């Protein structure tokens, strides 16, 4: 049995392996290792400002450096450490838990990783470009932009241009990484579950990841819109966020916090998933109230989008909406109460073993309880009037968020034996936990005592000094505890005791039924739960290998005579794919290529400010980046990469929706939110401006109307292309695609003509708020048209070579995207030309 085929994958000891791998386990390890690096980076920044906070007044950091440190600490910890760390485990473990051999789109998975790594390099690079962004991780407006002519006043608090812009660009690239990854996980979990594993039977960690990616899909789309607006203001010079404009501070606050609140659950949910797994495994008891816990998590995921204004209680929003948000905020704490009690009661009648993973999960629960209780204080608006902008908030969110980190660290110990095949040193693990727990509370509990300190300052009332000093000491203890962990894991990786398939009695999910570390293909055959328990089914040979607790399954356990026939009505066979047609691929250089290209492209963009290039040296990376990205994308598209799907799997509720189509639907759902946020921004601004006082930039609606007809026609030609492809007519296919491109170019041409007329009379994006909104929103749409053109040209090239005939799916996917672009225009046309 050839389960360890290389499939063009170099061995693990070679560097090239890690550059080309698309296997979910490798990518998971890459994410975990890289995120730990960012943990150290963010931690060092924190220790720097904790040193500054030893006594009131500036010491080792200037005011600007201090602000950079607190800002980048927040950004790095939230974005470049927490979620990637969680997704390292998600990458490794979720396919194993659901019975899949890899994610739905392995190359896109690798791409997500490279975009993550490169975006992280950009954010660190921003320190060296005149200073990183220094407006806090919340990036409030108008501090986050420069206003050249808008107010005319002298504003000494601006963030340095190039480095500040670079930080924002880095975050934008990160959001692209997340979006790609989100789509991948959604399709994987919804389409790749083993036979017999309905959604209800998903293991708790996989459930937590599923809900996390659902939230990410919509939340990060909103963040992308906010960042696009911010970048537009900084790079082009639009005035969305100008201080006294119709957008300004509140516009930013609304869009950012609409993202920001789901974000905190996005970072916490995977930790919750780890806690549920650890509690079950180490208490030897199934989760109490499991069904209700799942429902509670679903409720939180939805409700997280309805509480964002509790970050804005002291702004000028009206009392009624404040009250509503207070109610929904308190409401969202209740499902968490249920989850906490579920874990507590799971311990009853348990056989609890205080291993390192369990200590961290139990510790996380205790810390989360403290954090959660202090959050209720913040939900009572009258108290929030006091706590706003103080260390009470800082202490609260560190208790809850770092409780999440605590659980994930437990996850690292929990899955370390599975990933490396070696056992870590248990005594050192417990030492780590002891130092960690002491350090954590020494660092964050005094912040409650010193709660009157304003956030992000280094001046504070001298009476609070002892508390700050305790916190600084605690920070070093907490940071130092990680040295124990790094030593332990490194040493154990090299020479630890071999761990078996399942070192944890009562750990029940599928990853514990296979060797440590698992072979490249995870298992032979296909996972099935059709008879109520785990078995590995070989569809071709009709032989089944049953899994007994902990026994190896690859060299034939007890053969249980079981026909490989779908037993449930929900299992959907995929007619075209079986696992034995062709060996799956696991390597591709092109994700790295696209990542490198985008790295340089985004780096180059940082040199623009208010429509001008301020550093000509950056033109070279910009051009190189664009070229590398286009070339790598082309190769990516041309590459023949086989990522087979299981013949039989649970796909509810997406039975009958093909993998690629489902991916496109999820992508479009995310894009809907991006445009929704931009159009929402337009509404917000125009209402503040005075709806009737607004003037539309295009002087004449006719070009817009013509463009609408052009696009609608092009949608028709795309449908034609699909029909011709289905019928196998190459000429028809190529012809309709060419027609589509020509129509698209017509659209762009008319638009260019319109814009050049505006420029000729001095109407630029920075001329005023109406212009800003018009150019950015229609420009964003135009950008989507350009991307569509590029894809269409690629498809024409492929189609001329005979592709897509008889298999019209790629054409259909392009069609879906193109129809979406059309629909957006049909909305934009009346908004910007008629109303």
């Amino acid at each position, binding site marked *: 049995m050839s389960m360890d085929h290389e499939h063009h994958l170099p061995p693990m000891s070679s560097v090239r392996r890690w550059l080309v791998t698309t296997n979910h386990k490798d990518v998971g390890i890459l994410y975990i290792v890289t995120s730990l690096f960012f943990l150290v980076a963010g931690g060092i920044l924190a220790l720097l400002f904790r040193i500054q906070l030893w006594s009131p007044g500036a010491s080792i950091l*200037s005011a600007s450096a201090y602000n950079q440190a607190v800002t980048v600490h927040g950004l790095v910890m939230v974005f470049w450490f927490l979620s990637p760390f969680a997704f390292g485990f998600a990458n490794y473990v979720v396919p194993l838990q659901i019975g899949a051999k890899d994610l739905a789109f392995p190359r896109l998975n690798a791409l997500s990783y490279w975009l993550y790594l490169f975006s992280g390099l950009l954010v660190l690079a921003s320190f060296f470009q*005149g200073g990183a962004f220094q407006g*806090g991780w919340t990036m409030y*407006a108008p501090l986050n932009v420069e206003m050249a002519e808008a107010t005319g006043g002298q504003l*000494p*608090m601006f963030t*340095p241009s190039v480095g500040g812009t670079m930080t924002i660009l880095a975050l934008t690239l990160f959001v692209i990484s997340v979006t790609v990854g989100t789509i991948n996980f959604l399709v994987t979990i919804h389409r790749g579950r083993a036979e017999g594993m309905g959604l209800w039977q998903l293991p708790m960690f996989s459930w937590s990841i599923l809900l996390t990616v659902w939230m990410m899909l919509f939340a990060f789309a909103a963040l992308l819109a906010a960042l696009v607006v911010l970048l537009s203001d900084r790079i082009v010079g639009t005035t969305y966020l100008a201080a006294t404009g119709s957008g300004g501070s509140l516009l930013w606050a609304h869009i950012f916090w609409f993202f920001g609140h789901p974000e905190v659950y996005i970072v916490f949910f995977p930790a919750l998933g780890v806690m549920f797994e650890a509690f079950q495994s180490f208490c030897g008891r199934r989760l*109490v109230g499991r069904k209700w816990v799942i429902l509670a998590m679903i409720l939180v995921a939805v409700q997280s989008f309805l509480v964002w204004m509790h970050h804005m209680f002291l702004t*000028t929003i009206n009392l009624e909406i404040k009250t509503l948000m207070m109610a929904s905020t308190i409401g969202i704490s209740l499902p968490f109460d249920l989850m906490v009690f579920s874990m507590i009661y799971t311990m009853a009648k348990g056989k609890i073993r205080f291993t390192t993973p369990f200590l961290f999960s139990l510790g996380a629960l205790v810390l989360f309880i403290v954090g959660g209780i202090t959050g209720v204080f913040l939900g009572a608006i009258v108290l929030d009037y006091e706590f706003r902008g103080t260390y009470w908030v800082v202490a609260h969110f560190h208790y809850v968020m770092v409780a999440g980190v605590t659980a994930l660290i437990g996850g690292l110990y929990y899955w370390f034996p599975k990933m490396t095949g070696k056992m870590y040193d248990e005594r050192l693990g417990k030492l780590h936990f002891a130092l960690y727990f002491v350090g954590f509370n020494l660092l964050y509990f005094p912040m409650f005592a010193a709660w009157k300190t304003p956030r992000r300052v280094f001046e504070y009332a001298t009476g609070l000094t002892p508390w700050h000093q305790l916190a600084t000491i605690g920070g070093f203890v907490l940071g130092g505890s990680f040295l124990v962990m790094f030593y332990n894991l490194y040493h154990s990786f090299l020479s630890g005791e071999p761990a078996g398939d399942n070192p944890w009695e009562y750990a029940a999910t599928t990853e514990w039924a296979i060797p440590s570390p698992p072979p490249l293909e995870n298992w032979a055959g296909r996972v099935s739960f059709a008879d109520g328990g785990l078995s590995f089914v070989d569809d071709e040979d009709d032989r089944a290998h049953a899994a007994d607790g902990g026994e190896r399954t690859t060299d034939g356990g007890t053969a249980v005579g079981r026909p490989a026939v779908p037993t449930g009505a929900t299992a959907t066979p995929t007619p075209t794919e079986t696992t034995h047609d062709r060996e799956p691929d696991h390597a591709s250089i092109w994700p790295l290529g696209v990542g490198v290209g985008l790295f340089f492209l985004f780096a180059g963009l940082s040199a623009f400010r208010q429509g001008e290039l301020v550093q000509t040296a950056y033109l070279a990376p910009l051009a190189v980046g664009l070229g590398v990205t286009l070339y790598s994308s082309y190769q990516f598209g041309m590459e023949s990469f086989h990522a087979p799907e299981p013949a039989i799997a649970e796909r509810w509720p997406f039975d009958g929706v093909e993998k690629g189509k489902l991916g496109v639907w999820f992508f479009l759902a995310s894009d809907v939110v991006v445009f929704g946020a931009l159009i929402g921004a337009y509404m917000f601004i125009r209402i503040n401006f005075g709806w009737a006082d607004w003037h539309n930039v295009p002087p004449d609606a006719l070009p817009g109307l013509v463009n609408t007809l052009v696009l609608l026609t092009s949608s028709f030609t795309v449908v034609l292309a699909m029909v011709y492809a289905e019928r196998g007519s190459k000429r028809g296919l190529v012809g309709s695609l060419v027609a589509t491109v020509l129509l698209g170019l017509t659209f762009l041409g008319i638009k260019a003509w319109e814009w050049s007329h505006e420029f000729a009379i001095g109407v630029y994006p920075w001329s005023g708020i109406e212009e800003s909104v018009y150019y950015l929103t229609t420009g964003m749409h135009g950008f989507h048209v350009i991307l569509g053109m590029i894809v269409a040209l690629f498809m024409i090239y492929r189609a001329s070579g005979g592709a897509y005939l008889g298999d019209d799916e790629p054409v259909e996917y392009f069609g879906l995207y193109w129809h979406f672009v059309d629909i957006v225009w049909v909305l934009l046309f009346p908004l910007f030309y008629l109303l």
Partner: protein
Amino acid sequence: MSSPALVFVPLQFAEQSRAEIFQSIFEVFLALGTLVGVVVIGYTLYNAYKNRDDGAEVDAAEDAADGAASKKRPRVGDLPSGGGGGRKLFLSFAISAIIVVGLIIWTYSALLYVEGQPNTADAEQVNITGEDFTWQFEYENGVTTVNELRVPANERVVLQASSGDVWHTFGIPEKHVKTDAIPGQTSTTWFDTGETGEYRAECFELCGTGHSGMEATVIVMEPEAYEAWLTNQSSGGNESASENESATGDQSNGDNESNRLDAAASPTPAAAGEAVTGTTPMTAHAGGGIR
């Protein structure tokens, strides 16, 4: 503000200062929060200890093959399912829900009271503008001061806050009042000035390199002294106006200066409106300065 709702405000909150409202609510939350925290965490740790695996006998009942699925210990290869035991869960959940929701409903009446701007019709009103890391105050008769807010004792004062540049947040911790100061917006709040003395106002929203140290002194004066000062200022007003210009004019190379008053020092009443400019000691910029 919905006045019908004020009918439901319990007498407890009527006529109280913000300080008293905050204090009473905070204490109840703190007491209840600590109690709940101690009980829940204690019960958690107790449960963990009580159910620890002490290597004892195998639970025959729970490992029995024909026992209820929820009672069986998890084993590799099991399809995930629940562990039953929902009733206790619901009881605990219901109790915590009642406590939490009850607390919020109780504070809601306080919220209505505070937001109703009670008894502020004749109150002194001061306009606050945060700008260039300074706080500028404008009084009803047009007098302005920088980084120094003067108010009469034992009165309710209304504050209207805005910003001349970026998002600031004005707060006087000891007077339990705070509000965002957002450019293009004016937010309204009130506080009770209480006893005479000097207090500190700070900025609670990151606003740039001068955020740390963006402070003002709040001087609560005897009412007669306050009236005298106010009249004095408006008649000899050119003096404070020029003080304002020099104070704001110096902010153009902003990042090395902050207007900071030493809170420990006692004020000189004659130096009304004067901004004491201090220089925050700065070491070499670690990450490059701002433009």
